[in-house]
């Protein structure tokens, strides 16, 4: 159980929630959130948007009943959080190129923040694509060396990856597939997959994703995979 510090609407349907939490959290990991009894039945997997000692932040989109209930919570309310779960993005020392689409930008904030902490000399370029309205962009501008923003277009049309950069992406599967396709094979690409989940801990096999080396659990073996593991055809 965690106490909510804030839960603000950034633009319609997009919310940012901070809760009391202290623990080891990696970029790209997620928590299972719930603030209800048996309906909906399952908790909601929400990725870590930001973390500092005592404060864990989620950026989420209202898409159904669960996230709708989350969006109505007020500071001081309790929310059940389980986690962190999943492998998260790997720590790298090469230059970093990050590509996010829509609510897929959520885990990239903490990723860029941790990267810059560990690699103050490293270059981090960020591509962000949104359909209608952008959110959370200023935070990237204050951390990254370059932010390329696209609203209403196709962010991958503008994507140019420099030699030696590692690429990390999160967003709609079509966007990640496009990134996986267009980035030269010399650059490493990590993708953060999404799937319906029931348990979040690897027991239900509901979030299985086909990979080159057989079925993997998005919740436990992922959500972050190397491009060639999941986009191999």
């Amino acid at each position: 159980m965690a106490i909510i510090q804030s839960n603000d609407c950034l633009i319609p349907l997009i919310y940012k929630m901070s809760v009391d939490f202290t623990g080891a959290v990696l970029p790209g990991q997620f928590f299972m959130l719930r603030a209800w009894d048996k309906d909906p039945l399952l908790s909601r997997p929400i990725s870590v948007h930001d973390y500092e000692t005592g404060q864990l932040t989620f950026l989420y989109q209202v898409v159904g009943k669960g996230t709708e209930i989350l969006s109505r919570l007020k500071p001081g309310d309790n929310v059940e959080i389980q986690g962190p779960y999943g492998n998260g993005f790997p720590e790298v020392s090469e230059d970093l190129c990050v590509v996010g689409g829509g609510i897929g930008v959520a885990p990239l904030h903490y990723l860029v923040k941790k990267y810059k902490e560990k690699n103050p000399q490293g270059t981090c370029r960020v591509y962000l694509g949104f359909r209608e309205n952008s959110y959370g962009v200023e935070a990237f501008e204050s951390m990254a060396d370059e932010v390329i923003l696209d609203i209403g277009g196709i962010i991958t049309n503008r994507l140019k990856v420099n030699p030696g950069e590692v690429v990390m992406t999160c967003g709609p599967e079509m966007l990640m597939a496009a990134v996986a396709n267009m980035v030269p094979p010399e650059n490493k690409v990590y993708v953060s997959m999404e799937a319906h989940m029931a348990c979040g801990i690897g027991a239900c096999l509901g979030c299985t994703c086909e990979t080159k080396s057989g079925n993997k659990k998005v919740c436990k073996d992922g959500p972050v995979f190397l491009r060639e593991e999941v986009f191999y055809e």
Partner: protein
Amino acid sequence: MSKCLETMFNEILFKNPVISASGTFGFGREYEAFYDLEKLGGLCTKGLTLEPKAGNKGIRLWETPAGLMNSIGLENPGIDAFIKNEWPHLKDVNTVTIINVGGKDEESYLKAIEKLNAVDAQLIELNISCPNVKAGGMAYGIKATTAGDITKKVVELSKHPVMVKLSPNGDAISEIALACEIAGAKGISLINTLQGMAIDYKKKSAVFNNLYAGLSGPAVKPIALRMTHQVCQAVTIPVMAMGGISTWEDALEFIMAGATCIQMGTMNFNNPMAPVEMIEGLEIYCQKEGLSNISEIRGII
């Protein structure tokens, strides 16, 4: 710990009547992060088949009001990998281990059972009720004659006692249960998931590649309770009930309907601590009611 929850299921002693259900509990490892598995009365493995199975493609989970539909399709590593990688870990857990076995035809059921004779589990749960596989699975479990047939062959071959897991999707479930008892089953477990369907109107398509999928969770509880009652009236072998059981109060209802043990399935996803909370709740209930053993209220309805 008091003995008020100790339960005999056929000749097997369970420290309490709460068992984690197949398919919701992996091989137990994932839940060790939450509690000591030895607190459980027993645990039931993910359904195993002779050969490894990749399971179904496409969406595998879909929530419904207070329920969950799944179409996993018996994804599992196969019996050999289970014996090699999972059993050495599981066999040392001080709780009753139940191995759930599925198959696509008679031969694959029997070969799987034969291989499992190499391990010392306490109970086999014969799965003739999975709605999510194209061959075998539920096909055996929806008619009393075929259910009795396969049960008889499995019982003859297995060194373990056999409990048959029944489907709610076939003929009168009490008749199927009776056929299994006559065939030599030492217990009945029910219900597997109810076959349902989901359509995504936005995509104008069925949600599941297999069209139909299995519904579980609190939404199915009244049906499971009714079927448990019917089966308990029909057979003399013990019954392990499941179907939307989520609290100790639910467990009591099933025990009052005649169940000897209960399995907790989908609720493991809702609250990983649910089985432990249930055991504690049942224990307190026994103390408050002055029951020396939970069996005193079994089958009172």
